[in-house]
C-alpha cells in the first residue's frame, strides 16, 4: 500500500490544475483577510483615546477628532491592501493562468495569504500612533503640526513591512518565480517548491512585529512633542534610529523569503522531496520568531523618546542604553536566522539514512521551536525601554540601570536558548532516528 504522502499527492494530482489553484486561492484570500485584526485593534485604540481626550478637553474636540481620523485613515492601509489582494484572487485570479505545476502554484497562492498577515502589525502600530496623537492634540492643540508630523512619520515607517508583504504577494500573483521553476519538473519538485512558497509567505509574518513596534515609537514621539515641543528634533531622531533597529528582523525575513523564491537552495538536491520541502517551510516558520524583537525594539525606541523628552541633555546617554538594549533584544531573531540558514544551506537531515517522515517532521519541529524567540524579543525590548526611560530621568545612574537591564535580559533569554537547543538537537543529534 502506498504511504499517505504518496496517496495525498496522487489525490491532489487527480484534480484539474485549475481546481487545485482556485481552491488554494480561496484559502489564500481568507488568510490575507486576517490582517484586518490590526486596523481593528489600532483604530479602536485611537477612537478610545480621542474620546478620552474629548472628555478631558471638550474645547479641543475638533482638533483631536481630526488628528484621530487622519491617523485612523493611515492605519486602515494594510486592511485595504489585504482586501485588494483577496479581491484579485477571487475576481481576477492571475494564478490559474500561470505556467508550471499546479502544486507549486497552489502553494504560492497560500503563500500570498500568509504574507499579507503581516499587515496586522502596521494596523495596530499606526492606530496606537493615531491615538497618542489625538490625545496630545487634545491637551496641546497649539503643537498640532509637530504632533501630526511625528504621527505620520512613525506611521510611514510602520507601514514598510506591510508594503514588503504586498510586494511579495504581487510577485507571487503576477511574476511567480516558484511557478517558473516548476515548469517541466517532476511532481516531487513541485511539492518542494510549493512548501517553500508557503514557507516564504509564513516568513513575512515576522514583519508584524516591526509594524507594532515602530508605530508605538511614532505614538510616543507624538506625545513627547505635545508635552515638550522643544524636544521635536531629538524625539524624531531617536524615533527614527530606534525604528531602524526595529526593522532589522523584518529585513532578515525578507532576505530569507527572497532566497526561498528566487534562489531556492533545494532545487536539484538529491534527497527525499518531503524532507526538502518541509525544510523550506520550516525555514520560514523559524523566522516568525523575529516578530518578538520587532515589537520589543520598537517599545524601547518609544520609551527612549519619552526619556529624552524629560531631559533633553541626557539624549546621548539614553540613546546608548536604547541601542545596547535593542541589540540584546535582537538575539532571538539572529538565532532564527541561523536555524533558517542551516535548514537551507547546510541541512544535516538530507544525508541521514532513516525514515523520511521522521526527518521531514524533525525539520518542521526545529522551525516551530524557534517561534519561542518571540517572547525574549518582546521582553528584552521592554527592559531596554524601561532602562532608557530611567536613564532619561536620572542620567547619572546610567551604569547601574544598564547593569540591571542586562542581567534581567540575560535571564529573559533562557527560554529562547531552550528553543534553539531543541532545534539543534532535532537537526544535528536527533535521538528519534535511533529509536526506529
Amino acid at each position: 500500500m502506498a504511504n499517505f504522502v504518496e496517496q495525498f499527492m496522487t489525490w491532489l494530482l487527480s484534480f484539474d490544475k485549475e481546481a487545485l489553484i482556485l481552491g488554494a486561492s480561496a484559502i489564500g484570500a481568507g488568510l490575507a483577510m486576517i490582517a484586518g485584526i490590526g486596523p481593528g485593534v489600532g483604530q479602536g485604540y485611537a477612537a478610545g483615546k480621542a474620546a478620552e481626550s474629548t472628555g478631558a478637553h471638550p474645547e479641543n474636540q475638533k482638533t483631536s477628532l481630526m488628528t484621530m481620523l487622519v491617523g485612523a485613515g493611515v492605519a486602515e492601509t494594510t486592511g485595504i491592501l489585504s482586501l485588494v489582494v483577496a479581491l484579485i484572487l477571487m475576481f481576477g485570479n492571475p494564478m490559474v493562468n500561470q505556467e508550471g505545476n499546479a502544486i507549486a502554484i497552489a502553494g504560492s497562492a497560500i503563500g500570498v495569504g500568509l504574507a499579507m498577515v503581516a499587515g496586522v502589525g502596521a494596523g495596530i502600530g499606526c492606530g496606537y500612533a493615531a491615538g497618542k496623537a489625538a490625545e496630545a492634540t487634545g491637551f496641546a492643540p497649539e503643537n498640532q503640526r509637530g504632533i501630526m508630523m511625528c504621527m505620520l512619520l512613525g506611521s510611514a515607517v510602520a507601514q514598510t513591512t506591510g508594503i514588503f508583504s504586498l510586494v511579495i504577494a504581487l510577485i507571487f500573483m503576477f511574476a511567480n518565480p516558484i511557478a517558473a521553476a516548476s515548469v517541466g519538473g517532476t511532481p516531487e519538485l513541485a511539492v518542494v517548491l510549493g512548501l517553500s512558497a508557503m514557507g516564504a509567505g509564513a516568513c513575512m509574518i515576522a514583519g508584524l512585529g516591526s509594524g507594532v513596534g515602530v508605530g508605538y515609537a511614532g505614538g510616543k514621539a507624538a506625545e513627547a512633542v505635545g508635552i515638550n515641543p522643544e524636544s521635536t528634533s531629538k524625539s524624531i531622531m531617536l524615533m527614527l534610529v530606534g525604528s531602524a533597529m526595529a526593522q532589522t528582523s523584518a529585513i532578515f525575513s525578507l532576505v530569507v523569503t527572497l532566497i526561498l523564491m528566487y534562489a531556492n537552495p533545494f532545487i536539484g538536491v538529491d534527497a527525499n522531496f518531503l524532507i526538502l520541502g518541509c525544510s523550506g517551510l520550516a525555514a520560514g516558520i523559524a523566522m516568525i520568531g523575529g516578530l518578538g524583537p520587532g515589537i520589543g525594539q520598537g517599545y524601547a525606541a518609544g520609551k527612549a523618546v519619552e526619556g529624552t523628552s524629560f531631559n533633553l541633555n541626557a539624549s546621548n546617554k539614553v540613546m546608548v542604553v536604547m541601542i545596547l538594549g535593542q541589540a540584546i533584544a535582537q538575539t532571538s531573531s539572529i538565532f532564527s536566522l541561523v536555524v533558517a540558514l542551516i535548514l537551507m544551506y547546510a541541512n544535516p537531515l538530507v544525508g541521514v539514512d532513516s525514515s523520511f517522515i521522521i526527518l521531514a517532521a524533525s525539520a518542521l519541529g526545529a522551525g516551530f521551536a524557534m517561534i519561542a524567540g518571540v517572547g525574549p524579543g518582546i521582553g528584552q525590548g521592554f527592559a531596554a525601554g524601561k532602562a532608557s526611560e530611567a536613564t532619561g530621568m536620572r542620567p547619572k545612574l546610567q551604569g547601574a540601570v544598564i547593569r540591571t537591564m542586562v542581567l534581567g535580559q540575560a535571564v529573559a533569554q533562557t527560554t529562547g536558548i531552550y528553543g534553539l537547543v531543541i532545534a539543534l538537537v532535532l537537526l544535528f543529534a536527533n535521538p528519534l532516528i535511533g529509536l526506529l
Partner: protein
Amino acid sequence: MEAITGKALILACSAVGAGLAMIAGIGPGIGQGFAAGKGAEAVGKQPEAQGDIIKTMLLGAAVDETTGIYGLVVALILLFANPLVGML
C-alpha cells in the same frame, strides 16, 4: 518511496510535538523581560536599594521560568525518553 511504519509515524509526530512544546517559551521571555524593565526602572529611582531590587527581580524571574522549563522537559521526554513508542 518506502512505506511508513507505525513507529516511524509516532517518532515523526514526536519531532513536531517537541518543536511545538517550545513555543511555551514566549511567556517567560515576555514576563522576565517585564521584570527586568521594572527592575531597571526601580534602580533608576532608588539606586541604594539595587541589591534588594535585583534579588526580588531574580526570584520572580525564577518562578516565571517554570512553564518554559515544563515545555523543555516535555520536549526532552519526547526526544530522549519517548514513552509513546513503548506503548505500541
